[in-house]
């Protein structure tokens, strides 16, 4: 997909939260979202993601890494669901064996993508959640 063919979802006013402890991945995921016109914020671990919601913030989409210090992605996803957070949560991780994927999905994910994240993988996530309709 060329740059000119990328959809601009700015009119949808979607918001996203990037949850990842790695600065490289934070930077890339934020850029991917921004290129599609999605306003986004970033936190460094699951606890910060939970705290953000406790402070009243809410997001349409959460990109959740699995391995993080303090509170990992599985714990954070479970906690958010317990709090009644209904945002779409996509697990994004390099750990892709079936057992780990199953555990992460069962924590409450809506989707799972293996890192590295790309534009096409992000569009696949958005399409699955009906945030983006291919024309």
């Amino acid at each position, binding site marked *: 997909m060329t740059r000119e063919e990328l959809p601009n979802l700015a009119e949808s006013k979607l918001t996203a939260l990037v949850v990842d402890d790695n*600065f*490289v991945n934070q*930077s*890339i995921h934020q850029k991917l979202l921004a*290129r599609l016109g999605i306003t986004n914020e970033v936190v460094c671990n699951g606890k910060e993601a939970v705290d953000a919601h406790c402070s009243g913030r809410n997001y349409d989409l959460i990109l959740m890494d699995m391995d993080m210090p303090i509170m990992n992605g599985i714990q954070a996803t479970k906690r958010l669901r317990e709090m009644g957070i209904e945002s779409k949560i996509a697990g994004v991780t*390099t750990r892709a064996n079936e057992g780990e994927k199953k555990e992460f999905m069962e924590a409450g994910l809506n989707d799972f993508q293996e890192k*590295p994240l*790309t*534009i096409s993988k992000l569009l696949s996530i958005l399409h699955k959640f009906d945030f983006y309709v291919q024309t």
Partner: protein
Amino acid sequence: MNTIVVGQLQRQFQDYIVSLYQQGYLDNQFTELRKLQDEGSPDFVAEVVSLFFDDCAKHFYEFYYRIRERPDHVDFKQVDSGVHQLKGSSSSVGARRVKNVCIAFKECCDVQNREGCLRCLQQVDYEYKMLKTKLQDLFNLEQQILQAGGTIPQVSMN
């Protein structure tokens, strides 16, 4: 704008970046990264790879301490965790050789092979520094093209 000079620089850039893929320094994820760079963030790729190299340096010193400074108390689980992180970030920027060394490094951690880990540690150091030099040369070529009034070619590796 001297179109002949720009053309030469653009060809030089294309040849150089293709060679980096062919020699295994980079993979398709680097192409994906370049697609994200635009007029609003003209230094995006350089900024992200700079973060990556900072990550490499940080992890190298952490591994060095854990493996070399404490030979009788190597915490392979901690080392493995750090290698996993580095593998992730190398994968995200398309640093193929660094990623491959991390895969071998993890295997050494799994079997608690200290000597193997030491070799991988040296290899990580070598590969990330080599890639850093190569990418700096690439970014310098980009700057020369821009200063000559040209545009950076999009190079498809498909």
